[in-house]
Structures are given as C-alpha cells and as structure tokens.
C-alpha cells in the first residue's frame, strides 16, 4: 500500500502482483502451521497464530493506507478498479451470518432456507440496473448526499441519515455479535471480552484510513474468507465422491438424504411430525413468507447504504456496472457452496449419528457437545457416558439415537465440517480465520457508513459547513469510535437471533430508501415533498410493524387487529390467541424473544422479517400521489437528473478538496 500521496497509478497497476503475493504468503502460512501441527504444537496455539496473523495483516494494511485527504477518506479517491471493488464488496457483503450461519440455516430449513440464498444474490441485479451507476455519476460521498441534493436539502438528508443509522446499526450489532461467537469458540475467550477484542481489530482497519483503508483490507479479507470456506468442502467432496467440485457432487448427497429420510420414517427413527424432508418446499415458511423474504432481501440489498457506497469508489460509471457483476460472481462462489455444506453435514448426521447405538456415534460430535452446541436426549453431548446416562432417563429409549433425540446449534455446521472430513486441526483454524474475516469486513463497512453519515451529513453539511478538513476527519474518527463502542455494548447484551436481526436491517433499508432512490432517478416528476413524505410513511410503517410485532404483540392484537401467524406445515395458527391473550403477561411491553406472542402475530400472516413488504409499497404510493399534487420540480433539477443518466461528463456534485 502506498503512502498518502504519490505513486497512485503504479500502485493500481501493481495491485494484481501485490494480492497474488499476499495470497501465496497466506497459503505458505497455512502450510507452515500444518507442519507445526505435525511436530506437535498444541491446537490452541495454532488457533491464536491463525487469528493473530490475519488480524495483524489487516491492521498493517489499515495503517499503511492511512489518509488525510477527504476524497480518499470517503470514496478511496474513486480509483478502485472494477474487479478489486467487486472483491471488496464481496467481503463487505458476506458477513458472519453468511459464513457461519447460512449453511446451518440450510441444514435446518432445507429448501426453505434457500430464500436467503436467493434473496442475498438477486438484489445485485437491482443495484446495477436501477441505482448504483446513477449514484456513481451523481458523485456523492454518502447516500444521504444524494437524497439531500435531489430532494431539496436538509430535511431529506436528515430522514435519510435516520434510515441509514437504523438499518446499519441493527446490522453491525449482529456482526460484532458474530465476531464474539467465533473468537470465544476458537480462542476460548469469554464472550463479552471477545466482543471487545474483535472491536479492536475492526477499528484498526477503519479508523485511520476510512474508505481507502477499508477497501484494501476488505480485498485481503475476501481472499482469506473464500479460501477458508472452500477448502474443507473441496477436500470432503474429493474424499467422498472423487471430484473436487462439491457444488456438483452434493446432488448425490441430497438423493441419499431423501432416501435415508424414508428409511428413518419406516424404521421408527423419526416421526412424520418431527422430520422435515430436505427438498420439500414451504414447510418452514409459508409461500407468502418465503417469497416475502426473497423480495425483502433483494430490494434491501439495493437499498443498504454500506453496499451502495462501495460503488462510489470506482473510477467510472462503466466500471461501477462491471464491478457489480464482479461482486456477485465473488459472492456467488460462497453462496452456491453453502447448500453443499448443509447437505454433506446432514448426510453425516443422518447416517453416522441417527440410528447408531449410543456407544458407536462419531467422536467429532463430543467437541461441540462439550460447548453445549450439540445435545442428545436433552443433555449436552459431552461424552459417551453423558449421552448414555441422558437417554436412560427417557422412558422406553432403546439406546439407539433417534432424530428427535438430536439437537444441533446451526453455527456448528460450517465449523465442524473439517472434523467430519477427518482433516487436521489446521483446517479448523483456517475456517475460524475465515469466519472472523467475514465478520470484521462487514462490520468495517457498516461502521464506516454510519460514521460517514454522521460526520459528513450531519456535522459538515448541517452543523458546521465551514469546518476545515482536519476537523472533519477528526470528527469522523471520533464518531466511528463512539458508534463502534455502542454497537459492541449492544452486542454484548446478546439481543437475539442473528438472522432475524439482519433481516430487519434489510426491511428497514428497503422501506426507507428504495422508493425514494428509484423515483429520484427514474421519475423526474418526483418532488422533494413527495419523496420526504414517502420515506417517512414507508419507513414509519415498517418500524411500526417491527416494533409492535416484536415488542408489543399483545397491543398489536388488542388495538391493531393483528392475528396469529400460521404454522406452514399444518396451516393452523402458531399460537392460540384466545388463550394467549387471557394470560396475565399478554399485554406486556418490550417483551423478550421467549414471550409466547413475540414475533408470532401480524397482519396477513406476514413474518416481521419481511416488514419491508408493507412499508415499501406505501412509500412508492405516497411519493407518487404527493408529487403529483405539488408543482413540477424546477427545470434545473430535471436537467440534473438528465446529467445523472448519462455516464459522460463531470459528476453532478463536486466536493471542494
């Protein structure tokens, strides 16, 4: 990485060579650790070396890319080539939820889990054809910048900042939570400590060099995470089927799973009520919620500021478009492998744990059982003695593991695959480093988006437009620190399910941003008043639905006509409303996830993860109607919109250096 000034074109030219060297060094490092393992270095030390080495590299890149220039800090000087920006976006995009959680979700939900796979890939089509390149031409530093310019000033800016902070903060909390889980699992740190340790790693990268540092670190993190994700599963596929392409061979695993499911039912190892066939659709989500999640994740992708701002960094509009394509290609590499993880793991569990005598189950399970992540007969599967004792306590248990005896935490699926495949510990360490890279890179991008909005949009544009550069960047860094600590604190309180939190972030972004962004570019007649009212209406409805269904479900039923969601497998209501509403805790406020009504009520049977589905159409409608009621935007503004639509020429918004 170069110093803050000079040598920029050489630097770009040498990117390929630099990252190739980096990748080679990383592979060499893995081999070195493999040798260390063979000569008897303990696993715990290997784990620390892996995590320590990778974080040190990210920190070095961060420090070397430090910058004191505004345009470098906010948009990496707009000279990140399409392919590299694609890689950085890949790391920015793929979070702990993707790396660790996705395969586990697919393991549990089977076909229905693919809603997340579809939703988290298809949205990039919308980014490219509807929004990204136009924002690049506009020349903003942040998404609220665009809103403010197109929609008449600081009211629009303020609303956009609120939307941005709400969705990014929800999301970043989930990432720091994920960082804490990985660090605590592999390094044996206490969860709360691990959260703050992970935070230090995140800050090192993003504080000093802003977008510029984050970009070059994210590329390094992408390389680590993709190698880490693909290595174990490629080896497993080669061992099992002789072909190193797991994405092709897991079709056989699925066929085997389906056959085994029938066999388990026939031999009484599973009950028809307890078994969810892997390929059968709509037994975990109703069709409405399945497609609702797909729509919300896709449109949320195209509305999340930390993703959109990555396309502000390319040299041209043309490269912004190419860059979206590269991004999805790099993301695709992980997402189309996740179902393979799920299938191989499930086959292993169904054939080598379920149906086995308690004394003969595979020993890899006990490592995770000790941590409470796998349970058999209701007790942690820490050892053979423990599970034998636990199952004896169940009346009529024959000593053979049945499906209903077995409970697994979804995080284990990816983390345990190296052991299932019988690989040395070094591969497990690699997976941990990859998971950490995924969580850190996403957290970096999100924190930067929040800090930029606060420092650029609130402080510089609204509070003190005459602030000198040094002070602007100082404020940006201080705010970054404050937001990060607040997010880490929230994460350390374990607010809940990562997937649901991430889902809410997407719905919030979708309801708040999407209609205004689309109409702002594609319909010249959109007025400032229309856009601001639309954002407030759409976002407001989405927040209302989320908060009421999650935290005030009793009030939702009593005052807002909400009813119980339906159980997709049976078509019956999830909760007996008459009974639940008669219970003394029915009208409680700020209820915990465990409350019998929390997230189980709503309108039209709509899961609150897909709340954006209510907010977005309202947003579009309000923008349309209110815009038509007002006066047409000025000729000047319409001419600006024309400018945004043509790649040639200068950016519409130009910052003074």
């Amino acid at each position: 990485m170069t110093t803050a000034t000079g040598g920029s074109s050489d630097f770009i030219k040498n990117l390929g060579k630099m990252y190739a060297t980096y990748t080679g060094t990383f592979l060499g490092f893995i081999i070195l650790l493999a040798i260390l393992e063979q000569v008897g270095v303990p696993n715990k030390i290997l784990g620390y070396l892996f995590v320590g080495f990778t974080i040190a590299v990210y920190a070095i890149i961060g420090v070397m890319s430090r910058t004191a220039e505004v345009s470098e800090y906010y948009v990496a000087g707009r000279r990140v080539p399409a392919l590299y920006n694609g890689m950085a976006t890949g790391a920015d995009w793929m979070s702990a939820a993707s790396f660790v959680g996705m395969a586990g979700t697919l393991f549990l939900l089977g076909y229905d889990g693919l809603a997340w796979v579809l939703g988290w890939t298809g949205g990039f089509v919308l980014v490219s054809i509807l929004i990204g390149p136009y924002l690049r031409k506009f020349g903003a530093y942040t998404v609220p910048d665009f809103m403010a310019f197109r929609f008449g000033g600081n009211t629009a800016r303020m609303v956009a900042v609120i939307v941005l902070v709400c969705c990014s903060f929800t999301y970043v909390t989930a990432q720091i939570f994920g960082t804490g889980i990985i660090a605590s699992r592999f390094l044996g740190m206490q969860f709360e400590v691990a959260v703050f340790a992970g935070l230090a790693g995140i800050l090192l990268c993003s504080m000093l060099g802003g977008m510029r540092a984050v970009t070059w670190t994210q590329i390094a993190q992408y390389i680590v995470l993709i190698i880490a994700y693909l290595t174990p599963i490629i080896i497993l596929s080669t061992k099992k089927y002789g072909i190193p392409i797991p994405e092709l061979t897991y079709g056989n695993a699925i066929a085997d799973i389906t056959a085994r499911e029938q066999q388990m039912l026939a031999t009484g190892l599973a009950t028809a009520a307890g078994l969810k066939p892997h390929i059968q659709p709509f037994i975990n989500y109703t069709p409405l919620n399945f497609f609702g999640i797909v729509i919300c994740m896709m449109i949320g992708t195209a509305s999340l500021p930390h993703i959109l701002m990555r396309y502000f960094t390319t040299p041209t509009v043309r490269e912004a478009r190419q860059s979206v394509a590269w991004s999805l290609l790099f993301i695709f590499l992980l997402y189309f492998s996740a179902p393979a993880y799920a299938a191989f793991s499930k086959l292993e569990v169904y054939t080598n744990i379920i149906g086995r005598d308690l004394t003969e189950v595979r020993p890899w399970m006990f490592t995770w059982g000790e941590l409470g992540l796998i349970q058999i007969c209701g007790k942690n599967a820490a050892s053979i003695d423990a599970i034998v004792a636990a199952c004896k306590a169940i009346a009529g248990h024959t000593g053979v593991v049945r499906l209903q005896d077995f409970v697994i935490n979804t995080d284990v699926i990816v983390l345990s695959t190296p052991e299932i495949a019988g690989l040395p510990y070094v591969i497990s360490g690699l997976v941990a480093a990859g998971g950490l890279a995924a969580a850190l890179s996403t957290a970096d991008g999100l924190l930067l988006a929040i800090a930029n909005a606060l420092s650029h949009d609130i402080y510089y544009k609204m509070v003190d437009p005459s602030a000198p550069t040094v002070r602007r960047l100082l404020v940006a860094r201080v705010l970054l620190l404050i937001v990060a600590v607040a997010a880490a604190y929230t994460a350390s309180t374990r607010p809940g399910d990562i997937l649901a939190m991430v889902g809410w972030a997407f719905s919030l972004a979708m309801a708040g941003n999407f209609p205004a962004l689309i109409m702002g570019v594609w319909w010249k007649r959109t007025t400032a008043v229309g856009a601001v009212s639309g954002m407030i209406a759409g976002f407001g409805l989405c927040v209302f639905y989320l908060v009421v269904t999650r935290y005030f479900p009793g009030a939702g039923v009593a005052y807002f006509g909400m009813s119980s969601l339906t159980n997709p497998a049976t078509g019956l209501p999830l909760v007996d409303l008459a009974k639940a509403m008669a219970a003394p805790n029915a009208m409680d406020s700020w209820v915990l996830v465990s409350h019998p009504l929390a997230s189980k009520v709503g309108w039209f049977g709509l899961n609150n993860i897909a709340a954006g589905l209510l907010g977005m159409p309202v947003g579009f409608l309000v923008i349309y109607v209110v815009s038509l009621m007002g006066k047409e935007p000025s000729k000047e503004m319409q001419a600006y919109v024309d400018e945004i639509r043509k790649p040639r020429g200068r950016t519409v918004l130009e910052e003074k250096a």
Partner: protein
Amino acid sequence: MSSPTNSTTSDNDKAHWDKTTRLMYMHLGAWFFFGYVVHFFVVPLNKITIPILNFPLGFYMAAQGSLIAFVVILFLFAKQQDAIDREFGVAEDE
C-alpha cells in the same frame, strides 16, 4: 457543483434514455423470472431429477440455477448498457 450542459432534454438524450429504459425492463423481467417465477413451480420441478448430478430440478434452480442466471444477467447488462452509451455518444472516455 457543475452546471448542467443544457436546460432541456435533447432528442439524443431522450433516445438514449428510452433505449436504456427498455434494457432495464428486459433485465428486470429476466430477474423476476429467475428470482420468482421459476420458484413458483418448485413442487412440479422437484419431480424432475437432473441426470448424473442427481439434483431435483426445483431445488437446483433455487440453490444454483437462478444464481448463475443473476451473474450472467449482470455481465450481460454491463456490456449492453455500455454499448447503448457508446451508440449515443454519452459513454465515458476510456
């Protein structure tokens, strides 16, 4: 802040934008087909098994098929939109 080059939309700009809009709808249609329409038919599609690979087709489309389609759409779109920009002389210099 740069001032716009002209105050009204020129015919060239209009033609460029019409063609851009048509391309947008075309790809939006492809996106909708692979993102949603195919998956409406997952149950009948699952009755078909892909030879050799052994995937049920409905499952395969959601796990891989649509994803591949999205990647292809994006590279194709980048190329086609660039061609349109060049045709109307509004593309950036290399």
